[in-house]
């Protein structure tokens, strides 16, 4: 399970609040007082990336005015609502200058979300954006927005029209998908292994504390279980804190829209890569392949950064090296923002009426299962019917007619990599896709995912402090600290349920009675 789905699931439910009846028990003593709705303040990059001069970062929630004061040096009054003001934007902790840009203040309810909001219009470079997002995440009570959260808050505040409410599900779908892909990329590597390792160790800590609470009275729980937890927690705290301080040593972030070329062997995938690279529209700067089977190239398509990957041909193979290549290819397709499925046109059925069904079938073998959120109808797939020069003109035209606006199938382009016929049309389609994707602030913006991760790691460390604070006074409250820390880490690595903790307890201890 992926973190984003958890986050979404959690926040999606917030919209329900208004519909639930007031809890009958929410009165009287000892019932926690009902917190103000959405007490947390959230932020997100709300402009696209690519070659843009200005990036817009939005903040929404009760702490928005505090954010504005802290980051824009507004010690006195706030600016008049909805008026742009040119300010120096600084890091609230280090007071380091991050950028000069416009700030705007929106007093609730006169804002997109109905809450107090602020906007920062800053320079569009990735370094500036990352710095501002990280500075925001370091403020107390402020965290990166989950997918669709701004929209949901607007929905909550009655700021959305009926049609927008209808579209909410699709919007959230799109955003979670983007976040999921982003997280997949981020988790795929050294950093991912690091987080998984922390999660594993924290789970064990929690399991041991829970075992001590639930079983130590009846069972032989080895002496010193809690002492072990003490030192493990301390070790984890140190490691996470060190990681948070060491900002430059992060992994190389792959920026740009991730476009993956996939398909059967000999369909002409590599030719497509070369063709795309040779066109004047595409400026090539090759990066040494990270793996021997996937060739990655940075391109600039219509002014937008694209990371193009060529993958191994998909087929069942007995060769273990090739099998690994195919596995990686499939993994890459799952992480892609856009997949170009290349098909050899000479393999299409001669009867144009059968082509749609054939392609449908073919796509299902290339694309990951529908649970991964990718379907043939998805706007994240383009079909490239290569080697069109080898198909009779008349058959091609009839097939094109047949495939035009066929529901359930992505757009298909006939193309010949060897003669370049059809290339212009294909590039037009590709460019518009890339442009749309770049307009989505989530795709290809690893800094945002990174900011989310930082925020959760920080909260995780804070929660671990609670463990030490209560360790000797009240073990239930101390355990709460570990539970909370794991919840935060779980938003990066996947949610952890009570059953999983019990599994560890029963594996590690001989529990009876």
């Amino acid at each position, binding site marked *: 399970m992926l973190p*984003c*789905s958890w986050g979404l*699931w*959690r926040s*999606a*439910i917030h*919209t*329900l*609040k*208004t*519909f*639930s*009846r007031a*809890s*009958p*028990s929410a009165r*009287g*003593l*000892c*019932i*926690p*007082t*009902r*917190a103000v709705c959405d*007490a947390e303040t959230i932020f997100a990059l709300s402009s696209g990336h690519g070659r843009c001069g200005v990036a817009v970062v939005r903040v929404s929630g009760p702490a928005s005015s505090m954010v504005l004061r802290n980051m824009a040096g507004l010690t006195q009054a706030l600016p008049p609502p909805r008026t742009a003001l040119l300010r120096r934007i600084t890091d609230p902790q280090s007071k380091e200058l991050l950028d000069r840009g416009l700030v705007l203040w929106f007093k609730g309810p006169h804002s997109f979300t109905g809450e107090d909001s602020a906007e920062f219009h800053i320079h569009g470079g990735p370094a500036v954006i990352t710095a501002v997002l990280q500075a925001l995440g370091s403020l107390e009570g402020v965290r990166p927005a989950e*997918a669709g959260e701004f929209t949901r808050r607007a*929905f*909550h505040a*009655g700021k959305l029209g*009926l049609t927008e409410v209808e579209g*909410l*599900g*699709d919007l*959230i*779908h799109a955003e*979670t998908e983007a976040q999921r892909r982003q997280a997949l990329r981020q988790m795929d590597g050294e950093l991912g292994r690091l987080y998984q390792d922390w999660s594993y160790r924290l789970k064990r800590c929690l399991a041991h504390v*829970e075992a*001590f*609470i*639930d079983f*130590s*009275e*009846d069972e*032989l729980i080895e002496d010193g279980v809690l002492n072990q937890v003490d030192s493990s927690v301390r070790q984890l705290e140190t490691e996470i804190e060190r990681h948070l301080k060491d900002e430059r040593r992060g992994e190389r972030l792959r920026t740009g829209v991730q476009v993956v070329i996939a398909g059967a062997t000999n369909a002409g995938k590599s030719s497509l890569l070369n063709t795309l690279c040779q066109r004047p529209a595409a400026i090539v700067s090759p990066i040494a392949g990270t793996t021997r089977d996937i060739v990655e190239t940075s391109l600039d398509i219509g002014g937008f950064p694209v990371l193009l990957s060529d993958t191994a041909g998909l087929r069942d193979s007995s060769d273990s090296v090739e099998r690994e290549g195919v596995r990686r290819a499939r993994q890459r397709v799952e992480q892609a923002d856009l997949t170009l499925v290349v098909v050899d046109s000479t393999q299409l059925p001669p009867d144009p009426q059968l082509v749609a069904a054939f392609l449908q079938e073919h796509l299902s073998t290339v694309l990951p299962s*529908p*649970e991964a959120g990718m379907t043939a109808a998805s706007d994240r797939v383009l079909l490239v019917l290569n080697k069109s020069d080898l198909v009779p003109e008349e058959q091609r035209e009839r097939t094109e007619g047949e495939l035009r606006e066929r529901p359930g199938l992505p757009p298909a382009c006939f193309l010949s990599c060897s003669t370049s016929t059809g290339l212009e049309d294909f590039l037009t389609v590709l460019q518009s896709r890339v442009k749309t994707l770049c307009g989505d602030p989530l795709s290809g913006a690893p800094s945002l995912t990174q900011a989310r991760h930082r925020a959760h790691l920080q909260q995780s460390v804070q929660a671990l402090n609670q463990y030490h604070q209560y360790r000797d*006074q*009240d*073990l*239930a*409250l101390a355990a*709460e600290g570990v539970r909370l820390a794991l919840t935060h880490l779980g938003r990066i690595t996947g949610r952890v349920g*009570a059953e999983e903790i*019990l599994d560890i*307890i*029963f594996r590690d201890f*001989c*529990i*009876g*009675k």
Partner: protein
Amino acid sequence: MLAQKLHLLRHNVLSFVSSRTGSDLTRRQYDVIVVGGGHAGTEAAAAAARLGAETLLITQKIMTIGALSCNPSLGGVGKGQLVREVDALDGLCGRAGDSAGVHFSILNRSKGPAVWGPRAQLDRERYRQFIQSELLSTPRLTVLEGSVDELLVSQPNPEEPGHHRVTGIRLGNLPQTSHNKLGEFWPIPPDRAGVTESVDGSHPILSSSVVLTTGTFLSGSLFMGQTTSPGGRMGDAQSCAGLSYTLKETLGLRVGRLRTGTPPRIVKESVDLSLAQLQAPDKQPTPFSFLNTHTRCKPEEQLPCYLTHTTPGVERVVRESVHLNCHIQQDAKGPRYCPSIESRVLRFPGRRHQVWLEPEGLTSDLLYPQGLSMTMPPELQLRLLREIPALHRAEIRTPGYGVQYDFVCPTQLTPSLQVKSTQGLFLAGQINGTTGYEEAAAQGLWAGVNAGRTALSLPPMALSRTQSYIGVLIDDLVGRGVTEPYRMFTSRAEFRTYLRPDNADLRLTPRGFEEVGCVTLRRYKKAVSVRDGLQEALMALQSVALSSTRWREKLGNISLSENKSTTLNGLDLLQYKDVSFEMLASAFPECLSQYFEYSQRLKIEAVYRPHCEKQSREMERIRSEESLSLPSDMDYLSLPVSLSQEVREILDRVRPNTLGAATRLPGMTPAGIIHLLNYVLRTGQRNRHTEHRNRSSQKEGEKGQLCASNIPISQ
């Protein structure tokens, strides 16, 4: 009939119906029938009767009502919380424990009051007597000795395939005697008219609600050594094959198989207790029940427990006897936390395992060896016991044995514990895959409440997992199902620091009276007065505010982390480890000393309150999820919303009760949840109030509903 019953509900519970008329005694129709007289059955019957339903409890043997089939103890960590909650809802087991307890202790005393585990060793006789006399004095409750042969359900409606409605039960063998609330035995005239003719001469009794609490008796088999015999408990008649058939074949319910076991009972005199370690009870017993200030057993009358350990010899006997032991060779899943000594030894070889020697009662000459559940042949059981030094001369009174039994996969139930596909059929206890008296009692109570409510035409109710361990238990069962016998642990509760044993009355009693109807007026009044008293006391604490310097002067040398100038009120101060309410009361006697009786509860409240407040938002979220119910007959396969086929199939198979349950389903996508949510909100009001099968009219109404349901959004 149902309308007539309504006036009896709730407030009249205490007004005892003095006696029955002759025609009542021959009743062939009840509001609620409860099958089984164990922990679930007795709580269910008592709860339904408290609610105002005319209730019949059917058990194979009246004398085994309230019997403790296995361990002679109640409560513990997690389980003690359940007992407190059952008591807060006016159930029986808490008071029964106070009456029967012979060794009281609060487990986890050093680990924080949220995880304290009230526990007691019980006198088996006293427990049984208390439950039996309690049931006999419960108005509207009749007890009948007999065996249920068949569950009567109405013919499935051709338009609703798979849907049934309970109409009653059919008794098997003709009962010789039955027992009413006044303690008289009375015969059932075999030829009563007025109900459906029974073809085979057996006895139908009609009812719109039936609670099945058959424990291990559903296709139960007993195992000892290499012998197997049908049954659910040694010494009792074997069980209801007919019932099993109805559940599986007629109703098409999915069942699974589980196993459990019990240790041999040892003659006390034969044990060398000097070789075991004495475990003393608490000096001052703490009652389970909120109604009791002391227990029946006086502090000095309490009996001790003894602790001893297994030896390598025990492991040897287990290994040598594996081939003679059918039970452990079976596939059925046993509990991981209550394993037999065989599975412990095989799973964790080379270790020393604890064995508790527990008293069985004040007058009993037996000891119960907790931790030595076993199913090997009796002669080997004896050999095994004697490998333990304290038991080297031990004599066995009754050998240990294993039980395997069917359970109904609880995901087929609603949060009111009713079978989804069968109106009026409720299940509680081991039949739902749980283990333990407390888990059974908790479900029994809630099933009884809802059976009573259904019979009285009141809507069913659910308990939230944010409000009680009972809610956690039921939500886990119906939402996730079980793969092994389910036992309660505090680690299962997300809001453990709020679901504490000390505040169960405040969490549940007022609601139990005002909304549910299962709490008597006496208990309600008491809980309300406690609530008001605590509220006042908290306000009084908050009203005394001093700077931390002044506090130090007043209370002597206490360590406060705050700055000298910070102002702290009494409640803030009470959070500190070394500050007690008594200290504060002696500093401010005029406004605090009147609240001495609450001193412990106030201290606990002060420590946990800030934390609970932090969690309140999360609790609110879960409550909202739970409050959005999904109609049980929703046609997911053709729902006019954008859901993938996979998600549709998952929803169709599991049929989650609430949106909350839907979000926890593996394979469910966030977008799917949003689409479902939008759909439910749009059609929600309609679905709640009208027949939602009528699809065509529903579609016409969608636009209007959308506008209507949008109004609360903009509040």
